């Protein structure tokens, strides 16, 4: 009976298994250094895209939680020497910070562009703060924060409980790949439950959800926290991949990159942000290696074109086009996939 929700909560197992196989078998034919960072960016984009696409919450400073994950891991790893607890902290602490900030915003009825500013400001504060911590006096335990130079030389991931068996290289790739797959399934699971449907309701009409008796601020804070936890995990992996953590993890650039990837890939799907991040991340890396055309120019142009021509993003546009070709004539809707668009018309803003 409920047709639209089935597609949100259900996993298309065929595609999923194919995708998983590609990821897991890739190291047999290709090097893993570049794919690892693409997976990390994909997880980061998934964290934002999930919250944005299904609950309608767009954070302009999601790099705050990405960066927190990275720094928390580095600081904890230097102090503890083993990687299991630091990884857990790198997920837990961003989640806690997000819970506090989210509660402050959502219980205060902040929404829309004002929330965008607040989330942006949080990430900027972290960026400026970290930038200014050069010098020996800025340290947490044994870990010097390093200011704008960053923190190099922390222990990277090892097998839990065996600090001398490092997971560097191909094993880290597998850790990232499996994490991405698990997080994807986690998101699908949430969407299949009542909580996921309430989130959709909140995205569509917050007032009405409130008037149905749902505790909207609590729901929004919860999804914000979950999203920050995933972002923190991706930040932790990033620290391990780069082997150095600098304040640029908190930068506006990082926040804007993940928004662009999600948007181009397609907000309103889970696979959109993942593929968008991988594709555009790859483009970014390739462009960085040549000097003929400027990076920014290309990305800016892509973003403008996507917003004007395919505002739903690439994946949903493809799905729509595909669906229109093979579907029998249905009640013509300006809905269909278009309802996934997250546009805020003046009338909808309260």
């Amino acid at each position: 009976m409920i047709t639209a929700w089935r597609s949100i909560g259900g996993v298309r197992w065929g595609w999923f298994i194919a995708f998983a196989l590609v990821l897991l078998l890739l190291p047999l034919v290709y090097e893993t250094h570049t794919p690892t960072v693409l997976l990390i960016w994909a997880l980061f984009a998934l964290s934002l895209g999930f919250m944005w696409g299904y609950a309608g919450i767009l954070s302009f400073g999601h790099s705050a939680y990405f960066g927190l994950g990275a720094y928390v891991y580095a600081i904890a790893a230097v102090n503890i020497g083993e990687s299991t607890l630091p990884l857990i902290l790198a997920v837990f602490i961003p989640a806690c910070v997000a819970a506090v900030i989210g509660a402050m915003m959502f219980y205060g009825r902040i929404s829309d562009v004002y929330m965008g500013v607040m989330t942006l400001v949080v990430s900027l504060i972290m960026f400026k703060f970290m930038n200014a911590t050069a010098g020996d006096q800025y340290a947490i335990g044994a870990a010097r924060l390093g200011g704008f130079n960053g923190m190099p030389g922390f222990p990277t991931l090892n097998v839990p409980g065996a600090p001398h068996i490092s997971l560097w290289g191909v094993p880290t790739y597998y850790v990232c790949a499996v994490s991405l797959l698990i997080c994807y399934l986690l998101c699908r699971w949430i969407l299949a439950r009542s909580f996921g449907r309430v989130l959709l309701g909140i995205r569509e009409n917050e007032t009405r959800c409130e008037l149905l008796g749902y505790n909207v601020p609590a729901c929004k804070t919860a999804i914000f926290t979950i999203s920050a936890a995933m972002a923190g995990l991706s930040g932790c992996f990033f620290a391990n991949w780069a082997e150095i953590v600098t304040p640029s993890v908190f930068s506006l650039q990082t926040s804007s990159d993940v928004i662009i990837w999600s948007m181009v890939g397609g907000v309103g799907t889970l696979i959109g942000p993942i593929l968008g991040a991988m594709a555009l991340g790859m483009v970014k890396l390739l462009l960085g290696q040549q000097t003929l055309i400027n990076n920014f120019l290309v990305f800016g142009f892509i973003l403008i074109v996507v917003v004007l021509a395919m505002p739903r993003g690439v994946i949903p546009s493809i799905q729509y086009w595909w669906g229109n070709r093979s579907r029998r004539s249905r009640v013509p809707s300006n809905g269909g996939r278009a309802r996934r668009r997250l546009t805020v018309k003046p009338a909808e803003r309260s």
Partner: protein
Amino acid sequence: MDYAGVVFLEIIYMIAFLALTSAGLAVVFGMMRVINLAHGEFVMLGGYTTLTCYKAGINIYFAMLIVAPIVVGLFGLIVERLIIRFLYGRMIDTMLATWGLSLFLIGAVTMIFGSSAVNVPTPISGYELGSYQMGGYNLFIIFVAAAVMIGVWCVLRFTRVGLIARGAMQNADVASSLGYNPRTVYMITFTAGAALSGLAGGVLAPLTGLLPTSGGAYIAKAFITIVTGGAAVIAGTVSSSVIFGVISQVVSFASTPVIGEIAMLALAIVLLRLMPQGITGRFFKNST
């Protein structure tokens, strides 16, 4: 005593700086609810325009006060026609498209001018306040900022053009049934906002080395200033500039400039939490 004078002037300067760099964004946001994230790049373009004119021998005041606004204003017109006008009412999409535009502009300017800093000399020399050496040019900036604020306020309040603009912003349907095309109003308003950004960029060019990425320094502060200010164009910008200018400079003087900036950002969070519709959503309602 001299020190008090210095602090006072620095505070006024910061207020002026914030107001001037936010003016263009405030006009566009306050009137049309459009967030132009390429605003910082428009400011940067104003700077490069001034630089180019100066190198070509044009008088620097003419370059920064006349040429820069016109050039960037025209550029804003092109942007409005090609991009913005398709996205009215879609605030998030507009933000994303203008973000893309800002990246595009940074790239383009880098390819044309190169990525190293260029300098425009300050046309006004410093003066002495007691035992402190002050930048005379800062006074000029304060003067220009005040003139811009007063000028825009007068245009909106006292001219027919301003009244039509305010009317169209309130209710586009009523405006068109009175014979005014809202689309034209939006176009002119966006162009005016771009021109103001160009003016700010031209005037600020002599201060620091110009880089293609200079815009980034302006956009965050401007965005925060006008959103915290709320919907009223001038009252919002001025009130939030005053609050942020005072707090950021006072804290800077009491500790370090970095702490001062962080204090300003933290204050923005507090203010938005207390007044979710901005300052002029709560106080000074119905002001311009």
